[in-house]
């Protein structure tokens, strides 16, 4: 069998159009940016910038970009190489001057229309790869098409979510408003892409083509699109992103790895928020000595270099001593307290609540808590194995605890600051005069009113937790070496980075796109919530 090319047999016809559109887009972006820079002080009718100076910027930039592209040897530009670097430079600059002069003549609006026009053209052509890929054989539409086909479940889920959300967006509150902001929509799209991929790919195994830990002889360090050696009926016939240094499928590892990242990072952030809120609210609300002590403690953790903390917490010797387990015991109790106090303070006067619902709720919560921290044969083994609902693998627990521990103090500081600000508001005073108890006021008056900044920070913090997870993986701390999570994979692949790019770039860009999505989402949320 032949190696798959990136865009397959059909791609040969579409590629020239796509590349032309893409290059035109890039050139116009540069041109627009150059115009923007050279005329940063805006049109000034009294004293216009002399054209010669204004031209200098765009001319130089366009010329140099063309020259660099020709050096890079990309197909449409290699013709500009001309076999001689200096000759090529001269020609490129000449083209730059011509183009720059031309661009200066046309209006600003036209340049931007050209930017968007070429952008949509490139995007549309790229969508053709993805959509056509869904219906044809891998050979026809190449790696891009085949991957698009593997991702069918994700596409469907995304499509359904987006169409339903846009249809009902007026009745969906802040979430619905996101669909008014392009930035927010792109962010949400990226995040949901990874959430669905993690759920359907790692959870239900609908996407990955191979076993992420399986090693196949002959597939070591292979470039993307390599046919599987010794494939039997039922095996997917290709390693779409090639094989890594241990002959494992890069594509499947990235997909399954997303499962680990998508579960740990948000869950750790939720726990960090529980801890931060449960401590930050009373610190801000009551103030006094409680505030002094808690603030000192949180400042102390924050004063500690994160990386040193990781090295101290996540080494075999410390894990052996059980310290992370004890830390887990402390940190994981906060969600139980949070839920308990929240329910109690709100419903304590309702009939039956204290005698029936509340005890049941708390028993379940405590049972879950004990199952989480207790593990047969480990340092903490409270529950008999029969009652122990589940065990979290110890290395995941350690990583989880470290990420929670590092993030909690910052959340504490934010919540405390917000509480200090909000507690002087009228509605708080009104609740106080009504005779509400302090915890009711904190949890049901103050907290809902500061949710905006907290939600924004939550998104950013998931991104930060993802980066921290990757950092741990990069230093080989925590998760197992074979773990397909992105940080560990980047660390493993960077050794051969100079030759085999795919094993590193695939998880690297995955991580980047997820964090980028979260940041854009946070940005969109912030903008939309400010608009109220």
């Amino acid at each position: 069998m032949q190696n798959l090319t990136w865009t397959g047999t059909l791609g040969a016809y579409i590629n020239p159009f796509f590349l032309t559109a893409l290059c035109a887009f890039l050139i116009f972006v540069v041109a627009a940016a150059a115009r923007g820079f050279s005329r940063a002080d805006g049109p000034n009718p009294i004293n216009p910038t002399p054209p010669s100076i204004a031209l200098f910027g765009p001319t130089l930039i366009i010329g140099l970009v063309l020259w660099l592209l020709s050096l890079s040897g990309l197909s449409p530009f290699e013709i500009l190489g001309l076999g001689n670097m200096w000759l090529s430079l001269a020609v490129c600059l000449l083209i730059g001057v011509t183009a720059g002069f031309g661009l200066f003549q046309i209006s600003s609006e036209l340049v931007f229309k050209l930017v968007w026009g070429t952008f949509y053209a490139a995007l549309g052509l790229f969508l053709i790869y993805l959509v056509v890929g869904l219906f044809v054989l891998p050979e026809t539409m190449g790696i891009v098409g085949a991957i698009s086909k593997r991702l069918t479940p994700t596409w469907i889920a995304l499509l359904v979510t987006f169409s339903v959300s846009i249809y009902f967006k007026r009745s969906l509150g802040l979430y619905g408003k996101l669909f008014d902001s392009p930035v927010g929509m792109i962010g949400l799209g990226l995040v949901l892409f990874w959430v669905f991929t993690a759920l359907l790919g790692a959870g239900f195994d609908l996407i990955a083509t191979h076993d992420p830990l399986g090693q196949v002889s002959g597939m070591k360090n292979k470039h993307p699109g390599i046919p599987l050696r010794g494939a039997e009926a039922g095996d997917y016939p290709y390693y779409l992103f090639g094989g890594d240094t241990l002959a494992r499928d890069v594509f499947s590892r990235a997909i399954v790895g997303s499962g680990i990242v998508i579960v740990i990072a948000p869950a750790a952030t939720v726990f960090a928020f529980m801890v931060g809120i449960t401590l930050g609210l009373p610190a801000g609300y009551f103030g006094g000595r409680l505030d002094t002590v808690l603030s000192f403690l949180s400042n102390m953790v924050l004063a500690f270099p994160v990386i040193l903390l990781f090295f101290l917490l996540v080494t075999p010797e410390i894990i052996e001593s059980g310290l992370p387990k004890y830390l887990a015991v402390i940190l994981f109790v906060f969600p139980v307290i949070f839920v308990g106090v929240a329910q109690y303070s709100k419903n304590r006067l309702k009939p039956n609540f204290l005698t029936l619902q509340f005890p049941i709720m708390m028993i379940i919560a405590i049972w879950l808590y004990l199952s989480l921290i207790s593990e047969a044969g480990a340092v903490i083994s409270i529950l008999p194995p029969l009652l122990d609902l589940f065990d979290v693998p110890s290395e995941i627990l350690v990583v989880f605890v470290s990420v929670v521990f590092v993030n909690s103090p910052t959340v504490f500081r934010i919540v405390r600051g917000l509480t200090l600000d909000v507690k002087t508001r009228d509605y708080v005073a009104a609740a106080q005069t009504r005779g509400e108890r302090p915890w009711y006021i904190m949890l049901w008056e103050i907290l809902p009113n500061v949710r905006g900044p907290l939600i924004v920070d939550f998104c950013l913090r998931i991104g930060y937790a993802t980066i921290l997870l990757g950092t741990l993986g990069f230093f080989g701390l925590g998760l197992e070496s074979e773990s397909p999570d992105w940080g560990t994979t980047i660390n493993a692949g960077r050794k051969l980075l100079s030759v085999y790019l795919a094993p590193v770039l695939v998880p690297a860009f995955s991580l980047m796109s997820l964090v980028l999505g979260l940041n854009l989402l946070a940005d969109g949320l912030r903008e939309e919530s400010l608009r109220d």
Partner: protein
Amino acid sequence: MGMFILRRTGVMLLTAICLTFIVFIMTNLYPNLEKLAKNEGNFRMSDAEVASFLGNRGYTQGKLQNYGEWLGVLPGYVIEGIDGKTRGRCSNHGAIVEDAGRYCGVLQGDWGFSSRFKEPVLKIVATRLALTGKLMFWVLVVMVPGALLIGVMAGMREGSRLDRSLSTGAIVTTATPEYVSGVIFIAIFTSSAVGLKWFKGSATSAMENATLENFLLPVLTIAIYGMGYIARMTRASMAEVMTAQYIRTARLKGVSFANIVLKHALRNALIAPFTVIMLQIPWLLNGVVIVEVLFNFKGFGWVLVQAASNNDIDLLLAVSVVGVVVVLLTQLISDIGYVFLNPRIRIS
């Protein structure tokens, strides 16, 4: 003001003492001591030998006692070991027991001896910190002007196309941690496979002789990640200033846009970024560790990794003291600077 600095220094000392105590406890947990004993002595020691090794060297006296000795508030131990040799904390590395002073801790200026590098801790930290200082200097030189420029340009016309594209760019850089950008840089600019080979993927020679070729990539890798965040803060601050009343007045008076930005808006817009930059410095330490490992630049971050993975107790303590001091000092400077830059705030 004097009282304020004094109080902050007091808190700083208290924090440093608490934190070093925690590090001390963690590095002195028995499994860690066992690792240390085997590193120092011999990797095939039996459990009994480990116990006597540790006992002879004063590790088993009790944590508080040991910590006091390290601080220099308690006299150093003098122990006649089971093997007949007399060892004292103050005389272990050269001096004879009788001559050595009774106290030898941080307060006396003795930071201890590194078990990994077999050299006085103070000397190691000083050398390596100087190298990291060089790295950080160039990072700041690249990062701060770059970030401010981007932030000011984006913020001066909020919502414009320039703002949108620069802000998105800033978000992209904050979404690219050092271990991602670093490996991408190495792949593109140094590897024979891609073939550009414009720069060098190892900064070892930059320790003695830093050039553009061997130092640009490490500097850029750290700078880019921090740049986005500062740029966004600057943009927000700039955008706020640009909507202020006095700017509008100036515009209505016909002052040129360039003059408004440069002469009126900039000073006020740079107050917030100043504090952000100061607070960002400790965060750069993460990047420093990653980059120093990635580019084999043997600075402070590399020492941190070495000390932690070898459980080099004295060195780790010194490293954490430096880390804590840097964090707290930058906080202090940012607070004081904020007061000086912002005429509206006065601290009593």
